[in-house]
């Protein structure tokens, strides 16, 4: 499933948060979006998974215009792991993951064997198969994040959208999650904070600043100290690690702004 975003502009409270952004995700490709806080990454992703409507531009899913596709139809092929927010109600882990089957089920249909197996295998994939009977609220933040991923997997997506999926995870599970997502062979579009991880897993990177895409391409080509200086306003050194062969980003300590007294 290919995603293609063409010249979209998104406004929130009369302010343009995403300005004239175009990007593409091809089948099997892991595409990352990096950029500082407030650069519009989340808003862009929310627009793609249809929580927000763009004021301009089009989003095409396998060539079909998303705005004419019913929400229930696009949800059959697009899974989302968003930044986690607290719930007022509790579900068992099993029911939580089963909710991922929602777009594929008709009214009144019960959960059949296929649904059951998809849920079990999703739980197994995120390493949480022993947790089915637990209450979702009793899990740690990282475990909850993995359950949300399992829910997206049970949705059998052909395109997965991740909004900082590694937020609550320890380093082991960060690596596992990204490896798992990459191994699915479907299109993945993910906002990421960690530049080294982004360089490690992404086939293609888009760099956002103040609502614009300022650079895009394979990580090795575009990730430079100058770009990071420009986008994040920090100094760093980017090297290829001799042992792993991966790009690593080493940051210089930043200077704090002097506090002006009496201001």
């Amino acid at each position, binding site marked *: 499933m290919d995603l293609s975003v063409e010249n979209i502009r998104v406004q929130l409270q009369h302010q343009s948060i995403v300005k004239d952004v175009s990007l593409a995700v091809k089948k099997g490709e892991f595409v990352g979006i990096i950029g500082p806080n407030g650069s519009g990454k989340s808003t862009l992703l*929310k627009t793609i*998974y*249809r*929580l927000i409507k763009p004021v301009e531009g089009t989003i095409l899913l396998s060539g079909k215009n998303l705005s004419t596709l019913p*929400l*229930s*139809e*696009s*949800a*059959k092929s*697009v*899974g*989302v792991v*968003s930044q986690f*927010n*607290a*719930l*007022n*109600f*509790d*579900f*068992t882990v*099993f*029911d*939580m993951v*089963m*909710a*991922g089957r*929602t*777009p594929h*089920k008709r*009214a*009144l249909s*019960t*959960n059949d*064997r296929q649904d*059951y*197996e998809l*849920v*079990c295998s999703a*739980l197994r994939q995120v390493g949480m198969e022993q947790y*089915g*009977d637990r209450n979702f*609220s009793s899990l740690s933040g990282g475990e909850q994040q993995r359950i949300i991923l399992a829910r*997206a997997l049970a*949705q059998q997506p052909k395109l997965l959208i991740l909004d900082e999926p590694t937020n609550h995870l320890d380093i082991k599970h960060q690596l596992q999650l990204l490896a798992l997502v990459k191994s699915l062979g479907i299109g993945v579009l993910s906002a990421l904070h960690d530049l080294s991880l982004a360089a490690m897993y992404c086939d293609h990177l888009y760099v956002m600043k103040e609502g614009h895409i300022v650079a895009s391409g394979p990580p090795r080509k575009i990730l430079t100290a100058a770009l990071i200086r420009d986008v994040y306003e920090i100094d760093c050194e980017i090297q290829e690690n001799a042992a792993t062969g991966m790009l690593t980003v080493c940051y210089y300590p930043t200077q704090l702004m002097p506090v002006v007294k009496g201001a």
Partner: protein
Amino acid sequence: MIHLQSRQNSYAALLQNRRNFFLLLAGLLLILLLSVLIAVSLGTIQIAPIETYHIMVYKLFQLDIGNVATQVSPAHIEIIWNIRLPRILLAMIAGSGLALCGTVMQASVQNPLADPYILGISAGASLGATFAILMGSFGPTGIWGTAIGAFTGALAAAGLVMALSGIGGKSSTIKMILAGMIANALFSAFSGFIIYLANNADGIRSIAFWTMGSLAAAKWKTLAFPGLVILMSCVYFMANTRKLNAMLLGEEAATALGVDSSKIRRNNMLMTALITGLVVATCGIIGFVGLIIPHLVRGMFGSDHSRLIPTSIIIGALFLIWADVLARILLPSGELPIGIITALIGAPFFMYVLLKSSVGFGRVGG
């Protein structure tokens, strides 16, 4: 303790679990039937159970068991068939309707404290109904006028509360409860004002009816319409339990799962306003049912609506049947407004829910 929530040990266990749940539902339905039969034989006027069931069998199946006409008095037939039975059926209809409303509203606004009474929807319906009755010179009159008035009032209250608590933006539990308080105060004051202004001799008594509820006005012909609408709503929401589950997960997750939450929320609020309006128009404000029942049931079966909805409906009906029995037999002299009974049970329950840490006060709801 028997585990009634979904288990994931094996698919067979899941099926077994589902069978157990259906058995339990059947059991609850049986208890409901028994409750109706017991409740029908209880009341201020003593009628022997055997006579009661004679009358019931005679009326239901037109069976002449041992010459009914000479064995039972026509007055007793009147009491059983035209007073008690409609009243119990109305308790059933109102109880299941209010419990359904509470469950659906809680999912629609992702807030465990949503309830037609607490959010002032009932007060709005009551204002609409009193307005329609006492100013009855316009539009359709009679039960239709009252029902339409109550529905309009409920809708206005729902709109006000949603607007005040900022649904669509971020709404907190506190904001929503405060908005409900405002709606309650405002609409109740208006109803009282209208009743006094109308200078009706029964004014004060009808205030008691509209604010504390009573099932005494139940008649066969006023039952049919609310009964039908609530039955259809039950079927509708049972068919859409997956959507309600998705709504409970919050707006983002619902959207990601292909559920258009703002559209469904609007739909659901419209339907709950209709149900609340009909219930209030026929039996006044009966508080807390929509709060207590879903909470109790969620405690037993979890938040999955495929279980929550049917059980809430049945237990809501049971609850109001027995609350009405208490209202009828507690005082030897006469009867209590049923709203007093539900409030006596509901208010402490509300307190308990507030104190329980699981309610996200201060946190953003949803």
